[in-house]
């Protein structure tokens, strides 16, 4: 997954970046399976790797002309960006080396059971309102995307 992530930010051809991102997303789905979250892994493969990345590939084919691949690929403020990213990395290293003792050493033993049923119980029970709001958000996003891409409003 890390190799896929590094390939996303360093490839010159945006199609290569999109394929590397698909590899990273599929690797992430397998990590979800290691954490016993099969429903989230399924949603990730279907929605993310099968929906969003296909959308990205369509837009890359519409938008990226060959001229953009021959130019420089790092923008004009990459020095400040790398400094900021190094500061963020230092913050992460400081947090994770100081707080290492909070997490127990063992691996929690999960009984392999009915994860999807429990997720569905919680989703339709306690988080029903958020579920409806998410569907409203998707409706707004669809209308917004159609309006943004029309030629004449």
């Amino acid at each position, binding site marked *: 997954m890390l190799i896929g992530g590094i390939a996303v930010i360093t490839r010159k051809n945006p199609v290569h970046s999109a394929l590397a991102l698909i590899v990273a997303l599929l690797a*992430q789905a397998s990590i979800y399976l290691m954490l016993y979250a099969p429903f989230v892994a399924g949603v990730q493969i279907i929605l993310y790797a099968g929906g969003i990345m296909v959308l990205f590939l369509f837009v890359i084919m519409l938008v990226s002309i060959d001229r953009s691949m021959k130019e420089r690929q790092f923008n004009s403020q990459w020095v400040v960006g790398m400094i900021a*990213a190094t500061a963020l990395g230092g913050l992460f290293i400081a947090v994770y080396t100081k707080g290492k003792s909070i997490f127990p050493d063992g691996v929690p033993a999960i009984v392999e059971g009915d994860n999807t049923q429990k997720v569905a119980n919680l989703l339709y029970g306690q988080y029903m309102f958020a579920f409806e709001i998410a569907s409203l958000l998707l409706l707004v996003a669809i209308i917004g995307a159609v309006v943004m891409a029309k030629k004449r409003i």
Partner: protein
Amino acid sequence: MVPITTLHYLVLGAALFLLGVIGVLTRRNVVIVLMSIELILNAVNLNLVAFSHYWQSMPARLGGGPLALHGQIFSIFVITDAAAEAAVGLGILIAFFRNKETVNIDEVNLLKW
């Protein structure tokens, strides 16, 4: 073999987040910046699911137990939001490309004084 504790997943999530931030801050192509934003959201999802896995081993009176799947539900909503935002962002990109014929961030300066 070293047992893979929660901390390992969190460090992996932090590394992915850092890669995404580097991609957002340093690349010129707008499409690759949007893909780095998706990397950031994936790192956040990994953190959420790792913590929900950790919560399932906590005692039930603290809120844990085998039903503590709140992190996984949150990550489902984050995936949904990422889909909506990717669609709208790509629509904006197409609308901008129709006017200016470029995908470089350095040339997105129509509002600059």
